[in-house]
């Protein structure tokens, strides 16, 4: 059964692409674990890890989940809530930063 959408999917990644993506994912994971274990990298641990994991995330979503080749609307259906979730996460971190220490520790109010 052909649907109109399939015309877009002409550019199917071939097996080679999938394997290359898998290889990169493994390398990125090794790098992540490496950054964790090598003390020299600890000052930049958080940003580096966030970037590395974001790359892995993007690779799986864009290639394995085919989002790069599919309709931009699917990217919207995934991206908008993802952005929202990230915004909520950041907002909650900001809202709790400093407030929570006032609770169990019994610090100054206000």
């Amino acid at each position: 059964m052909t649907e109109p959408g399939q015309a877009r999917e002409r550019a199917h990644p071939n097996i080679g692409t999938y394997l290359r993506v898998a290889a990169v994912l493994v390398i990125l994971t090794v790098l992540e674990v490496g950054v964790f274990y090598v003390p020299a990298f600890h000052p930049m641990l958080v940003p580096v890890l966030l970037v590395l994991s974001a790359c892995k995330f993007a690779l799986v979503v864009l290639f394995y989940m085919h989002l790069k080749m599919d309709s931009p609307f699917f990217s919207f259906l995934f991206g908008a809530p993802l952005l929202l979730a990230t915004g909520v996460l950041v907002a909650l971190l900001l809202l709790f930063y400093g407030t929570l220490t006032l609770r169990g520790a019994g610090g100054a109010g206000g």
Partner: protein
Amino acid sequence: MSGPPEARGLRSWLLTTDHKRIGLLYFWTALAFFLVGGLEALVIRLQLAQPNGRLVGAETFNQLFTMHATTMVFLALMPLSASFFNYIVPLQIGARDVVFPRLNAFSYWVFLLGGLFMNASWFVGPLFGAGTLSVAPDGGWFGYANLTSRQYSPGPNIDFWVLGLQILGISSLAAAFNFIVTILNLRAPGLKMMRLPTFTWMTLVTQFLIITAFPVITVGLVFLVFDRFFGTHFYVVQAGGTPVLWQHLFWLFGHPEVYILILPAMGIVSEVLPTFARKPLFGYTVVVYSGVLIGFMGWGVWSHHMFSVGLGPIADSVFGATTMLIAVPTGVKIFNWIATLWGGDIRGTTALHFAVGFIAMFIIGGLSGVSHASPPADLQQTDTYYVVAHIHYVLFGGTIFGLFAGMYYWWPKMTGRLLNEALGKVHFWLTFIGMNLAFFPMHFIGLLGMPRRIYTYAPDLGAGIAQLNLVSTIGALLIGVATLVFVWNMWRTRRHGQAAGNDPWGGATLEWSIPSPPPVYNFSVIPTVESRLPRWKSEHHAAMRDPPAAPPAPIHVPGGSMWPLVTALGLPVLALAPLAHALWLAFLGAAILLIGIYRWAFEPFEV
């Protein structure tokens, strides 16, 4: 011969996957819950009519206001809107049904079962060894931690609330995915997005709000279930947690929820006004974009429900600002509605009365809302009856008025008969007077110092508070009488209602191009749409020709299926397990779910 005769009998309703039948099921069920919620309100008002009221005790009062709000929000207002999503949206887009008819049926059954589950709590106290008949939820509709902890609410009341809401959430989510895909993918040829009826547009925005907001409360409720049943500490201060987390998670859901409640009603008003002014909606594009903007911005304001929590000046200022900003797109819509009426050829039907009443009441509710947006002002208002006034102006004067407008507008389409207009006017005016009598005094009662959620008050609480409470109760009783008039109108119409043709109002949108009620396949021929108001003649377009009375060839409609109902049954069984402390019930519930899903998946079902 236009198609197979529609199946009749109880079995056909239990197995139905027809959006029109599902819409009717939602309607009647939601109306029943609306009456239940209304009764709860009346008892509350009778208790508060005088100081030192002795009609009910404190615990019962807590149950009453909790169940009144929970019932109204989740079991009445949302499903009443859903009844129109179901019945009307496919008709407005020229479709034969929704994309996933069985999922649609599933949503309804889960709603019914969830509502019954939660309301069963009124009667099952003895089963839990309670000294009372009722173990209904009593922690407020917003269930603040740590009142809802096992320590402070040891009984099953809150369990019914948490588990019931989890079930209801699934109903809303399932329906939302269905409607998003339906509206986007099943539009008639030529029906571009900016030609969609406003009601369908607002429905679409609402569904996106549902799929993003409900997961958040799901998580908050899961944490509460775990705290209550498995001894975790998500909201426990001594372990380093905080009840404020619950508030954030609840209001992250709760604020989008109020837009979920109001946007469909705004969509209805945007349909009714043009029809009875015989004039297109003024500034359609702006109204649509405002609705979308309200949806997005609704995510940025949640902590305005928490101004008294002590989040700090930065948080308070930010949320105060975003809350004031969201008044802008709302205000824009109001101006557009007024401009629609201006210079129009007005027909004062009951539907129009409710739609115009919506505008007026929503302005008042919006004004009190904007006053809440200022944190210092809100510190005076929060947790007082001033907020109760705001809530009811926007949800009763807003949503319920909008829903009544929709009922009078679409009743002929859904039933083939017109509601009586004279009775309708009586219903409107009694409701209008009643609601203003009931809720306007609450602004003053609140500012004079009466807190919310107290079961009684002393005679000397404040100047005039007792008298104003009495006025408010009279207003509530008047609303009750008005509602009876409406029920009488519905009942009478069954036999004596004037038959409605395809288009009793001269409507512009597709639902008016087919019989009332529509045949099971809706459109004998799917129309091609060339303008935003297909059935009206304009400078550029002739009015569309309605589809022929009979289809040129037999039209296949899917039959019913039992698996949505069976699968839905798994949920309350699963929910019963923690209540009954019976692990086997959890396995049974999961088994029913799995079997239902598998049979559903492999059932031959052609749309």
